[in-house]
């Protein structure tokens, strides 16, 4: 009993400590007619433009094997940010959403989350955030949609440093939530995009002792067969189709040891334009592309560390047009020294860019900025705010 009393005091102190944290945001006035009232969100001040979207969803990956993958969302109409909503809208789901999220997407009024650590794809209703289904997919990575089907890349049985094991793409019916089939692609497939009626899968091969993969597998969704492949570069990461149907791909970069056993990155995270007709990829020079997302005006936004080869941090966004040229100067992001930029999306209706920042172990931050980089607002998120989706 002595214990309990002490606890009350301690948790009281903790509550005060939490309340005293910096960050200029005030808890929202929870009006009774607000459908999200019980989620207790944070109101932010927005700019003049209003979005045509209802919500911006954010998947916080969480820490590896810590079972703390969470979903936040921003409701444009009330300018309110809601944190960690899954357990509140689905209180009976044992152990919450799951472990180590890796992708989120909205399709046909539903939110699809890909949980790499839990080996599951969890589908929520985009309106109520209630869980609709959980589909088991081994070691899933990323998701794309085409004609009422969801396609998920999977590392399947691979182990880091092990023998080469081919990954797969699983096809899931968006109505029945059943796995309809799968197709074997390259080792450790990462990004996936639907473009011109075909699926494009970036193979990384990052787990293998033998070396990296360097090509994109092209899948015909009708037959679920790999019909061809496009050679790009070693250790592929993302493949993204922009608003005009142009395909882009990025690499993870490669590191090496020097003779004093200091490990450093020698090849940057590069951006490639992929011509789906000629099956040729062209390097976009002078762009660091840790992450890419479609730009509002077509082409691609590339988020990268300009100093990645020296090991320092200088995060910037490059706006690349379809021909591979830079639109204007790069936008240098203000980061506190410990942070890495970790996720990006652009709202095409307003041009606003949302960037997630992380230090990998404590709650991250999402910043909403104008295309020029001027900050509009920021909020505190879960751990590793890495993936966005607009609804």
């Amino acid at each position, binding site marked *: 009993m002595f214990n309990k009393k002490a606890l009350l005091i301690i948790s009281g102190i903790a509550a005060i400590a939490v309340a005293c944290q910096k960050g200029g945001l005030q808890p929202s006035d929870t009006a009774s007619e607000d459908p999200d009232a019980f989620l207790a969100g944070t109101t932010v001040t927005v700019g003049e433009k209003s979005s045509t979207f209802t919500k911006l969803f954010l998947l916080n990956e969480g820490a590896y094997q810590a079972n703390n993958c969470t979903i936040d969302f921003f409701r444009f109409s009330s300018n309110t940010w809601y944190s960690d909503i899954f357990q509140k809208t689905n209180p009976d789901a044992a152990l919450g959403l799951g472990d180590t999220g890796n992708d989120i997407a909205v399709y046909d009024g539903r939110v699809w989350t890909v949980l790499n650590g839990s080996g599951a794809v969890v589908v929520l209703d985009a309106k109520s955030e209630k869980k609709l289904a959980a589909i088991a997919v081994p070691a899933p990575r990323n998701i794309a949609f085409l004609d009422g089907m969801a396609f998920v890349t999977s590392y399947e049985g691979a182990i880091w440093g092990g023998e080469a094991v081919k990954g797969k793409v699983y096809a899931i019916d968006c109505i029945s939530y059943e796995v309809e089939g799968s197709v074997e692609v390259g080792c450790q497939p990462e990004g996936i995009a639907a473009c011109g009626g075909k699926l494009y899968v970036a193979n990384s091969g990052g787990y293998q002792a033998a070396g990296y993969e360097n090509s994109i597998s092209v899948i015909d969704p009708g037959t679920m067969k790999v019909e061809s492949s496009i050679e790009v570069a070693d250790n592929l990461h993302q493949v993204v189709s922009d608003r005009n149907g142009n395909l882009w791909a990025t690499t993870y970069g490669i590191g090496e040891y020097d003779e004093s056993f200091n490990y450093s990155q020698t090849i940057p995270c590069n951006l490639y334009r992929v011509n789906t007709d000629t099956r040729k990829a062209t390097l976009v020079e002078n762009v660091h592309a840790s992450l890419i997302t479609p730009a509002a005006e077509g082409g691609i936004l590339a988020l990268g560390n300009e100093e990645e080869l020296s090991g320092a941090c200088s995060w910037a966004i490059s706006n690349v047009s379809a021909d591979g040229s830079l639109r204007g100067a790069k936008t240098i992001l203000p980061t506190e020294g410990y942070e890495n930029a970790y996720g990006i999306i652009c709202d095409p209706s307003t041009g606003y860019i949302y960037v997630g920042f992380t230090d990998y172990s404590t709650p991250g931050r999402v910043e909403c900025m104008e295309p020029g980089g001027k900050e509009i607002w920021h909020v505190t998120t*879960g751990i590793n705010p890495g993936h966005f989706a607009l609804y």
Partner: protein
Amino acid sequence: MKKLLPSGLLFLSTALGVSAQESIEAALVSERAAGTVLEAADTVSAQRLSRSFGLDGAVSGMTGVQIRDYGGLGGLKTVNVRSLGSEHTGVYIDGILVDNAQNMQVDLGRLPEGNFSSVRLYTGGRDALLQSAREYGSANALYLESRAPKGRKFSASVTAGPFLAVQPYLSFENSFKRLGTRLSLTGTLSDGRYPFHVKDTKELPGGGGYDTTMVRHNSDLKSICADAQVFGQKGWRIRAYVYASERGLPGPVFKRGGGWPQSSDRQADADFFLQGSWKKALCAGNSMAVRGKYSHSATRYTDCSEFDASVSPVIYRYGQDALMLSISDAQEITPWWKAGAAADFTYNYMDSNLRNFVYPSRIAFYGAISTMLSFNRLKASVSLMYTLQDDIYGISDKSLRRTFLSPFASISYKPASHLTLSAFSKRSPRMPSFNDLYYTTVGNTGLKPEDAWQSELGARWEESSWSISLRGYHNLVSNKIIAVPTGNQFRWSMYNMEKVRIIGAEVKASYSRRFERLSVEAIARYTFQRAANIGTQNTAYQGHQVPYIPLHSGNLDLSLDFVRTGIRADVTLFLCGERWSSQANLPQFRLSPWACLDSGISKSFGKFSLSLRACNILNRSYQMVSGYPMPGFNVRLRACITL
């Protein structure tokens, strides 16, 4: 406490009337009484050890100690003293360090408690003159004293525990003329499955929440341990130890989709060491000690695919060899003034099948000088230890040097016969481990030693039947070695980044009384630790409590010995306040406080004895490490025969 223990052992040995025994004991006692300014902060006696069913259980109650227990018999159990981190706690077996250059962690679960007669904890290390040089730089020292042979005795016991565990234990001891030997053999077989609760209830309009019982899988353990010791009357002893185990690594609990199998990763270990020491009084007032050790350990870690049983697992192998030689000498200059010097040499080598492995060898010299004054009421000592460490890469001619200087001063004063006041200040290094430096793609060869400054003020009041001690301390850890993400977002590296300030207080009160039919011992301990991350990389959480350190913790321990009936009973209540699993002390990282009540009873029937121990009687579900649930209520039964 320190006084009670040796005299208790002496009493036993004289009662047995074995002369050789006496001299072996005397040698052990003189080693302990060699003169220290600071007393052990806490002690676990032989009797408490024997009832503890595991060394970690015995150590966990000590003042200032945080055990990190990953649950079950196979789960790793390490000691963290006064929030400095387990790498700062040296575990010594008879004065010789248990060395692990790979990760600097010692798993207490691998040392059978039955082979030791006492455990002493020195917060701030020990200041004895004849110790090895390296000890002068240990921030904290957990001293395990071997059980010395007493006459000729054979004992066998078998323990049946929860989760289908069986632990047989055999020991044979013999002291013959000038030689004592002790052999023991221990085995463990455990299925390791235990149920645990996960729950989260929400205060929501519609209510709700979940409370589920799950079962821990893949936490089985098979182990065998053989330990042989020879004690010489003339101050020498030799020990050979072999440990082999094979276990499942259940991993943390997290949500798994669609019935995928649980973790199937495995780990197999084989450890061996041979150590010896010899102490001799040379000429007038001069005595010396020589210590040596060779150890080899091999670990095989099998990483299995959770999602596809047909995929061949990846096997990682690690091997370590270590050699240690130490010589120390102490000179009595006047009856109140002594001086000592010690020099150690160590060699470590590590082998692995990891990609891009460096095959590091480490050659280190440790040199220490010390002096001690002891008057009737006042004792003081000063020492200085120097570390010189060279790492040589096996696949090139590159090498790396690190040095560190550790000063240490201690003083104790007895203003009244019952009162002792003491103080110390000490700077200790934590040298970077092989993993910190060379682990593939994570290691950073530019690491500096982690630096810990400890200062303490203490007071102890001692009466014949009770005592109370108070200690207050201030620790400052700088250049703390932590993993930090690099400019490339997909990679981490080790850096000397953080700074931690720890302000703590410890209270220990004990009472013991011997009545005609009953002897009673009661101990209460309380620890306050405010361990704040200052100077962290992330300023938003500056000043927050260091992960896994409770602000408040303590325990109550009562034991009763009904002398005539051979019945012994004890009750222990452990209390631990809330902790956080992250340096951000936010509600989502909070680990609930826990209380754990254990109780045991034993009865001896001549040569037989039976003991029963009930653990976690309140059946609380709690976690010491986030994601690693501890077992609920469980009972162990031990039958023992001594011939």
